[in-house]
């Protein structure tokens, strides 16, 4: 390995190449499961690549997110992400998470399934009416999660053009200046702050209102800023994740026609297939949100010292050959699949059940209603996102 002792590799190891994972991860899992890396910004950090080690970093209470506050966090963007639920530890984290957890349980999400089916059907109707080719990113993958989260949160869908721009800005790596990003963020917080005030005047039955009530009943427990930031985070969270995974999953299926035929033959296989796609598609270009050791802890045979940061690669963990048989092979019927595509531990994705349901309904309906679905341009002409945060298609022209 081209490793000069004591020199950190730059990370991500290589620019994103479609949905392919750099082979260096597999080599690191084998020979150097904990390695030093340097992200474009922030301090040097350990990178864990094995499944068991990544779970330890994310799940062991001796690793802290709160300790990142005030440090020069390893990151992909010039601007440091401030505060929020992802920068807290229990019990502060628990206090905030409990406030919204109820709205995102499997049971609550099931109640949204019929309405989600309706939204998906309407989007496909509109695609069919427009006629091929249609950009699946713009006309399907983007409106679907945004409409669902808007309805769930009680945010006017008509305003989506506003906060779509702001949310994109939040996860853009290099295309905007820090001042510009701050301006968009202020816009987003201002917009949400306005909604919060509105809930105060006219209470409704949605999670934002529940947050407002909790805040007003227990002023000592929540700040206005926390409530606004959390609500903004919920609105923004699906923008770069579910929006990107829907076309990614469609792309993987359309480029694995035999497996797609197997899936179409029995639509009850869709939920299992979605789990495999979550495992197989390495969404994040790099991992972020480092955890800081609060005491000396051994990880992957290395003693991590108290105060040192570690990041765990979810994509690498999901390809760990000691956990997943034939890990680089897509197997839509994979039975044992404890992937960590939604993270692990206290920060395990709050929207995981919602995202799963959207992906099941979205992908399931797409492949059944459009049996001739295909990518409308030759593969080399597909355009991929060039930013460094998530892997995904910028546009996906499809025909049927």
């Amino acid at each position, binding site marked *: 390995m081209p490793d000069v002792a004591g020199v950190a590799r730059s990370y991500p190891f290589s620019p994103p190449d479609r949905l392919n994972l750099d082979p260096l991860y597999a080599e690191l899992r084998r020979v150097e499961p904990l390695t030093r890396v340097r992200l474009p910004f922030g301090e040097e950090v350990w990178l864990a690549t094995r499944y068991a080690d990544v*779970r330890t970093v*994310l*799940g062991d*209470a001796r690793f802290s997110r709160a300790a990142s506050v005030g440090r020069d966090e390893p990151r992909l963007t010039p601007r440091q992400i401030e505060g929020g639920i992802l920068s807290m530890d*229990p019990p502060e984290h*628990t206090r905030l*998470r*409990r406030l919204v*957890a*109820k709205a*995102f*349980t*499997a*049971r609550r999400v099931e109640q949204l399934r019929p309405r989600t089916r309706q939204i998906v059907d309407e989007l496909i109707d509109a695609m069919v009416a427009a006629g091929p080719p249609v950009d699946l990113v713009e006309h399907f993958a983007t409106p679907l999660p945004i409409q669902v989260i808007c309805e769930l949160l009680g945010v006017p869908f008509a305003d989506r053009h506003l906060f779509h721009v702001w949310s994109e800005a939040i996860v853009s790596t290099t295309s905007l200046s820090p001042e510009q990003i701050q301006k968009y963020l202020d816009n987003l917080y201002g917009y949400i702050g306005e909604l919060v005030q509105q809930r105060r005047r006219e209470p409704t039955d949605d999670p934002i209102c529940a947050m407002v009530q909790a805040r007003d009943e227990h002023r000592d427990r929540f700040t206005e800023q926390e409530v606004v930031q959390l609500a903004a985070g919920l609105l923004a969270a699906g923008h770069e994740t579910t929006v990107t995974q829907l076309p990614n999953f469609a792309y993987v299926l359309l480029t694995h026609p035999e497996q797609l035929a197997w899936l179409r033959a029995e639509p009850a296989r869709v939920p299992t297939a979605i789990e495999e796609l979550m495992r197989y598609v390495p969404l994040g270009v790099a991992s972020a949100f480092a955890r800081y050791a609060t005491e000396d802890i051994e990880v992957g045979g290395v003693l991590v010292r108290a105060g040192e940061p570690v990041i765990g690669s979810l994509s690498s963990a999901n390809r760990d050959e000691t956990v997943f048989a034939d890990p680089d092979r897509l197997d839509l019927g994979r039975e044992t699949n*404890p992937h960590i595509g*939604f993270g*692990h*531990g*206290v920060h*395990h994705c*709050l929207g*995981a*059940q919602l995202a799963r349901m959207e992906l099941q309904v979205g992908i399931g309906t797409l492949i059944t209603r459009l049996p001739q679905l295909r990518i409308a341009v030759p593969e080399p002409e597909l355009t991929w996102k060039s930013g460094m945060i998530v892997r995904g298609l910028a546009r996906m022209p499809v025909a049927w």
Partner: protein
Amino acid sequence: MSTGWRVEVDAGRCIGSGGCVGMAPGHFRLESGLAVPIAVVVEPTDAVIDAAESCPVEAITVRGGDDALIAPA
């Protein structure tokens, strides 16, 4: 102990997110990827309620001495 609470995890529902272990490390641990209560009967404490209320699949139940459901509400 008659005033104790009974804590159960439904193994058929648990998705092994590890949330409960992180929130209430004294009360839950992961075994073969699934959560199990460290003690089935516990002294009343907010920690187990927090965990039951936050579990994404509502796999955790907390019951009082009279078998009444305390959490999730």
